[in-house]
């Protein structure tokens, strides 16, 4: 009986160890798809990781592909290596290579771009939409998969969505879920509770005319990618993080709020914030605030004016580099 019990425990441990090891063969937020020589089936252009055991190199590739070292920067990681792809894709139309461009009537140039890091570049523009019209909304717009393109309209919440003041518990104008993408929209003067993220998502080219309760809130764990945003005039925090998650922000302009990012007060889970190329001005308290000694924040290549402290509260790591004051 004891032998059987020991065998069962041993088997369970073996399974657990195998699972733990497998989990390191692809980065967080990536989907493992193939090992060397196998077909990795994904559509569109995506960030693809190659490696194993927590060591990876990356390339932006158009799928599907055969998992192969020649697609990536060189790596010394031993074989077998695995390919995995990010949750967010782009169509990368005429300049891409894909099976759709194998015919003679289609394009032939490669869209492959390899990199071993993800640091950004370019200027700080924030959101670039000029309003193309307005649209009243009386209920939260849910983006549950794919891409919702607002066409640079100004969305004006009304009715049950809330007044846009600092009252907690207001509904959001948009709810982005499960890696979906919201792009090209302006939130009007009634900012209500902005944008909520559930299980990760993407926000591109978005402007808050008048930040209400919060500009955005991460409600459940996942990876949130935010780029090309502008937000103005909030009494409290701009971003609120309520669950263990990674938030990547690039090319943002934020003015006249209390804090740029706030981890929910008193929580100890880990959040990771990477903010790159942001212009932050008139922050009444500071940039990052957390009470968790496991959380990590980084601000790079940004412009700061009257921005208070970079790091407030407890952090495992909170750093800045390449930032200038103006």
């Amino acid at each position, binding site marked *: 009986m004891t032998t059987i019990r020991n065998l069962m425990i041993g088997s369970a441990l073996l399974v657990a160890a195998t699972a733990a090891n497998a989990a390191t063969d692809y980065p967080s937020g990536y989907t493992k*798809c*193939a*090992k060397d020589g*196998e*077909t*990795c*089936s994904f*559509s*569109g252009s995506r960030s693809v990781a190659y490696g194993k055991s927590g060591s990876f190199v990356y*390339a932006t*590739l*158009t*799928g*599907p*592909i*055969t998992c*192969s070292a*020649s*697609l990536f920067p060189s790596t010394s990681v031993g074989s077998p290596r695995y390919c995995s792809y990010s949750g967010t*894709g782009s*169509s*990368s*139309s*005429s*300049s*891409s*290579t*894909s*099976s*759709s*461009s*194998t*015919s*003679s*009537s*289609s*394009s*032939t*140039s*490669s*869209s*492959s771009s*390899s990199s071993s890091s993800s640091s950004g570049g370019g200027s700080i523009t924030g959101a670039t939409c000029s309003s193309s019209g307005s649209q009243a909304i009386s209920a939260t*717009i*849910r*983006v*549950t*998969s*794919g*891409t*919702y*393109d*607002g*066409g640079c309209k100004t969305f004006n919440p009304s009715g049950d969505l809330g007044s846009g003041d600092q009252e907690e518990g207001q509904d959001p104008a948009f709810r982005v879920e499960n890696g*979906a*993408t919201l*792009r*090209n929209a302006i939130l009007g003067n009634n900012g209500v509770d902005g944008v909520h993220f559930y299980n990760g998502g993407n926000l591109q080219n978005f402007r808050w005319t008048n930040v209400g309760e919060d500009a955005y809130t991460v409600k459940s764990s996942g990876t949130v990618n935010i780029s090309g945003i502008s937000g103005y005039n909030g009494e409290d925090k701009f971003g609120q993080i309520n669950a263990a998650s990674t938030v990547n922000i690039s090319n943002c302009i934020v003015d006249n709020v209390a804090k740029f990012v706030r981890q929910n007060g008193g929580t100890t889970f880990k959040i990771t914030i990477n903010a790159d190329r942001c212009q932050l001005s008139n922050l009444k308290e500071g940039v990052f605030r957390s009470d968790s000694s496991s959380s990590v924040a980084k601000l790079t290549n940004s412009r700061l004016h009257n921005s208070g402290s970079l790091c407030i509260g407890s952090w495992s790591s909170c750093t800045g580099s390449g930032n200038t004051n103006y």
Partner: protein
Amino acid sequence: MAETRTLHSVSLRGVSLPALAVFVAIVWWASRNGSEPATDAASTKPAPASATQSEWPQFATGNDESDERVQSAQNAIEVGPEASFGAYVDGKYRFLLDESGQSPEAAKRLRAALLAREKIAVEINTARQSSDPVAKEAIPAQLATLAALDQKIGTLLRSGDLATYEVLKDSDIEQFQLDDYAGGVSAIAPLSDADRRAVLYTKLVHRQRFRQVLADSGLMRGGLDAGERQYAFAEVSRALRESRDSYLQEVRQYLYNDEQFTLLSNYENTEYAAELEKLRGIANGE
């Protein structure tokens, strides 16, 4: 000016007849009853020219390698990444496979050929993005195999499905965009399968001319000087704009829900702007 007329007229000649053929085929295809059971379709339609009665020994158009690839695909056990790849191929050709109206055996052969075709397409796609010169050297031979497989597939299809296949085989990007757009509106104004099919086919038909102009322009092949690139860009950008405009104009009639159409227009306009910028970058030698 003379050059402009030449490129334009060549493009029109090169595109108009295939586009017309595709359009007629799609009208025929769209007029079929989408909910018609496959078995009924098989029993009521006239005997196909080749597809359902084709046998492998009848293939006279292929080569040994393509034959082996198809046979290998037919015998393959799909697990792990191969199962994912099979699902990818099934998704890409779902509008063809769902309504092929073929016997199970013929449908199995067709699917195996499609798997083999997509496998070589993946190899080409990989080689093009690879830094390995040996992989790039293999591309011409792979393209020949791809052409042979396309011919084989043509023999397995009912005659009316050939045009459908011709537009679907190069539709990865458009299908990705359709799924992306449809996902984005799924919680607000969901598309039916018929809506999706109408949007996809309309777009593919209208993209044909742009693709032809792009290929004729030489812009993507390199080798043009700066002036030639700008000239090519002017032609290509005009074709791209016309493709988008005519597509949106036609697809309007299929989407009864205004919100669906508005959001589709938003989506397509963003994709158009992004594609135009990429082309402009190429024209500027970036």
